[in-house]
């Protein structure tokens, strides 16, 4: 059985932590149904990290608007994987970026690298003027 949870949050930096806490809780709940606490904790941390990076990107690239845009976080729990999608109405972007060169002490550019390292699958699509980045991890 597939289950979906959808949460719309204001696209403001102060709501990033709330989004990550929701992600960690949902992931721990889904993983905890079938695995031990240690596995659920690692699974939850992966989603906490991925959502922190993607939500921060949405907030950072929202641009100047009269009111903060909403960012929607959608979880899809399927029998073999959990997917979280971050949806915003910002300008289109690409997820095909190069990993930063650590030897040059970069301050930025780690976000997508971290997402790719902790998730099994990352996709991006543009749909009805929305950016949708979807990040999945096998259960």
């Amino acid at each position, binding site marked *: 059985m597939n289950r979906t949870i959808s949460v719309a949050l204001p696209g403001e*930096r*102060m709501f*990033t*932590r709330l989004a*990550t806490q929701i992600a960690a809780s949902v992931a721990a709940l889904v993983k905890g149904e079938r695995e031990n606490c240690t596995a659920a904790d690692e699974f939850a*941390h992966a989603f*906490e*990290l991925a959502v*922190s*990076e993607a939500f*921060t990107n949405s*907030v*950072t690239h929202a641009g100047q608007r009269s009111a903060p845009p909403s960012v929607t976080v959608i979880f899809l729990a399927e029998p073999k994987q959990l997917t979280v999608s971050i949806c915003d109405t910002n300008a289109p972007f690409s997820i095909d970026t190069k990993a*930063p060169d*650590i030897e040059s*002490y*970069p*301050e*930025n*550019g*780690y*976000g997508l*690298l*971290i997402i790719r*390292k*902790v998730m099994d699958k990352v996709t991006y699509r543009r749909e009805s003027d929305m950016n949708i980045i979807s990040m999945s991890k096998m259960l």
Partner: protein
Amino acid sequence: MIITETSNGSIAIVALEGTLDALSAPELRNNRMVIDPDKMVVIDLEKVDFIDSSGLGALVGALRQKHHKTCGIILTCMNGHVRKVFEITNAQKLFHIFDDTMAAVEYAANQQGTGK
């Protein structure tokens, strides 16, 4: 995030507590002890429960300011989740990392004494 500053001789010890993300990273970027290019700093991460790329970037940025100088940043007491972020980004290559803060302070004092 809570930042507590102490010192041991000429070594600054900065203990962080809470979450190191995009919301809190500016506090670290503006901390006088951390960004002082002439100060060797031991940053105690024992009470940091979460770090993301923004927090990591703040630490790397602070270290960059001290690069090629006789001082640096030493990180201590990372929990498993924090350590994982350093491992998957390879940022662990940039920092001296200790499990014990006092051992790190001793190491920093020795480095300063030998001018390294």
